[in-house]
């Protein structure tokens, strides 16, 4: 090999290395979607379809699909498993839509994606009259709408609840769970006087800079009577009420009600802290219940609705909706499958087998289910009081702006007033796009 060719080789190696940087972005380039009808389209065509959703470790999704396939041998549904990571699920669904592929028929969307998918016309508007929406909890149905039109159907829901150490509260002479933040702080200081509570902290939620912070910030603001976006979807977060909500979190960090390390907590870190007996109160999702029952705090804790500023607080909503891809084939089959998949029977199977919270109100009062999941009545209250996270088209931007500003306030880099002011202008900027 002579000198020049090896130099050429080096240069091309450099080019290859650098070129690989670009390939990730270019695959999604140059997209344009042709306009399709803006009204509920005719759902025609029957035949095999697919259902795209996150990898399901419980196996219950396949079980439900199998029972559909048994009844409809000519309209079989194939379960397309997407990665467990939510961002990757969204990414794959967007890629599928941008290439107008018919690979995914029915999509399982996180509740916060509805607006974005609807505004891009990646999903079809659905005939609301054909779904039993009146039997569902109202806030869950709200997450499925974009500009008052139905674009998805709730398949599962979720709401935040307050876990607390009932044994310690009882010992400190407190009979009921706190319903306001002030009560919670007062209860905690009583509990901390107990010798068993040595070294414990009061409260934690999810404050790491990720989607969980958006959830916790939204809950604090809503629980203090504020809003992030108003009824018309316009940002309105620079208000005294919102400031009271954010101040609750900021002050709690300052006075040690929330431990300093909680700024790194996602769901799991908080759960572990609670389970190892470091926390008196914890805001988390219902999935913690069965895990905590197997830990050393088993039998020593209970759940309550989230507290607020002057009364019960408002949770954010989790869960998934199913939607119909605009580019899919066999939409008549898809619509039938969606009805089947979101029916009360299916929801009850999901709840029984995989402890997925149902959108149907009736299931929360079912005695057999309440026996299996004692937190159901609390969760029902939580969801009924819940406020969906901001329903904006650029949800990703809105959420990162919230994380950015809330994080700055919690770490003391900004005052809460300044953070809210900046957040308001960021949200306005992203809404104007």
């Amino acid at each position, binding site marked *: 090999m002579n000198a020049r060719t090896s130099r050429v080789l*080096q240069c091309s190696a*450099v080019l290859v290395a*650098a070129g690989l940087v670009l390939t990730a972005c*270019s695959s999604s380039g140059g997209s344009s979607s042709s306009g399709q009808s803006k009204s509920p389209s005719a759902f025609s065509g029957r035949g095999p379809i697919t259902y795209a959703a996150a990898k399901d470790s419980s196996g219950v999704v396949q079980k439900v699909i199998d029972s559909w396939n048994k009844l409809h041998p000519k309209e079989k549904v194939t379960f397309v498993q997407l990665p467990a990571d939510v961002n990757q699920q969204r990414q794959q669904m967007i890629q599928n839509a941008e290439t107008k592929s018919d690979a995914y028929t029915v999509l399982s969307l996180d509740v916060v994606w509805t607006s974005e998918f609807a505004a891009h016309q990646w999903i079809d508007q659905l005939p609301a009259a054909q779904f039993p929406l009146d039997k569902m909890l109202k806030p869950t149905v709200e997450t499925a709408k974009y500009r008052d039109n139905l674009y998805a159907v709730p398949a599962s829901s979720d709401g935040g609840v307050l876990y607390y150490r009932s044994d310690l509260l009882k010992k400190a002479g407190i009979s009921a769970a706190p319903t306001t933040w002030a009560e919670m702080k007062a209860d905690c200081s009583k509990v901390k006087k107990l010798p068993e509570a040595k070294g414990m902290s009061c409260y934690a939620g999810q404050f790491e800079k990720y989607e969980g912070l958006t959830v916790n910030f939204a809950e604090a603001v809503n629980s203090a009577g504020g809003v992030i976006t108003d009824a018309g979807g316009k940002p309105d977060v620079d208000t005294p009420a919102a400031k009271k909500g954010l101040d609750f979190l900021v002050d709690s960090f300052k006075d040690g009600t929330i431990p300093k390390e909680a700024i790194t907590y996602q769901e799991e*870190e908080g759960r572990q802290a609670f389970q190892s007996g470091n926390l008196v109160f914890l805001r988390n999702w219902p999935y913690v219940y069965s895990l905590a029952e197997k830990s050393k705090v088993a039998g020593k804790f209970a759940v309550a609705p989230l507290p607020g500023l002057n009364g019960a607080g408002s949770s954010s909503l989790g869960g998934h909706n199913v939607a119909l891809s605009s580019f899919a084939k066999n939409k008549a089959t898809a619509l039938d499958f969606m009805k089947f998949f979101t029916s009360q029977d299916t929801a009850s199977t999901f709840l029984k087998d995989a402890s997925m919270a149902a959108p149907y109100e009736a299931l929360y009062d079912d005695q057999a289910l309440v026996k299996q999941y004692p937190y159901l009545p609390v969760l029902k209250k939580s969801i009924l009081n819940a406020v969906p996270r901001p329903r904006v088209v650029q949800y990703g931007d809105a959420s990162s702006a919230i994380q950015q500003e809330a994080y700055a306030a919690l770490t003391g880099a900004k005052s809460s007033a300044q953070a809210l002011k900046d957040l308001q202008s960021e949200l306005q900027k992203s809404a104007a796009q």
Partner: protein
Amino acid sequence: MVDTKIPPGTAAGGPTGTAGGRAGEPTAPVQGSRRAWATAASGRTAALLVSPTLLVLTVVVLYPTIMAFKESLYGTKGLDPKTGFISDTEPFVGLQNYTDIFGQAGDRFWNAFWNTSFFTVVTVGLETLIGVAMALIMHKAFSGRALVRASILIPWAVPTAISGLLWRWIFNSDGIANALIGHQVLWTTEGFHAKIAVVIAEVWKTSPFIGLLVLAGLQVIPKEVYEAARIDGAGPLAQFWRITLPLVKPALLVAVLFRCLDALRMFDLPYLLIGAQKNSVETLSMLAQNEASNVRFGPAAAYAVLLFLYVFLVALGFVRLLGADLIGDVGGPRRPKGRTRLRRTSAPSSAEVSA
């Protein structure tokens, strides 16, 4: 490989003999058309032989690069406030995505740019020191050498995604790192400590890469050189500076170049260890990914193109500034610069390119 120069006009190979005294053929002006024809034929064969490579390069490098550049000239799809739908097409905005980095919105870009540069300089610097030390240890003959070699290479064999998660546990609020230093640092929060956490994890992970390449360089240094040095009374330090380092330099430079290019594209480690959208550790790759995931492909492509140019310039700088040394200077006394350049264009030096 052959020098593939095809003289113009000879491609048809016509026997009319006009190709004889062409300027492109200084070596054989009078031999006539047969020689020219032969050269053209071998030139064609050579072109044919390299064409698959060129084709692959076009498909995997050129096409995506051009597509990314084209995409970077388009803006974000707008929302029609009346219908509530996003428009179908992306507006053409020319170079606006590039000029935006000099405006107010550019803060995030420059932050990512400095983070990327900081990580590259610091991690590659530390890795070089540690990597060379590792290579020297691995090169020594002692019992259990195979075990040491294998264990030094383990961090490199662990996928970055996994090591990111491992280090996340180490840097947890009640993880080992805090237990060792005896007071609580919240490593994964915003701040300079987050950068340090990334640097530590990255250096741990990729020093073995440099170690491995340097070890390969060390193994081709003849023992006689060291024997001669010992006879001349050179100590270990003198031997290292005067013999080991100059002789291992070509291998080391290639390793450092590769590491630089890799570090400039850093994505997974800060993403997993510290988290997405943390300003303290956001690199250019993370910024581009974030823009793309928010369905803003135009700006994302613009950032990717800028990163491409940055990587390209660094690589070019390496080859230009250090290229001569990279190829020429092995195994002999330093030559005057002019001669080195002369050698490069004429003499083959296959024996010397040992790395």
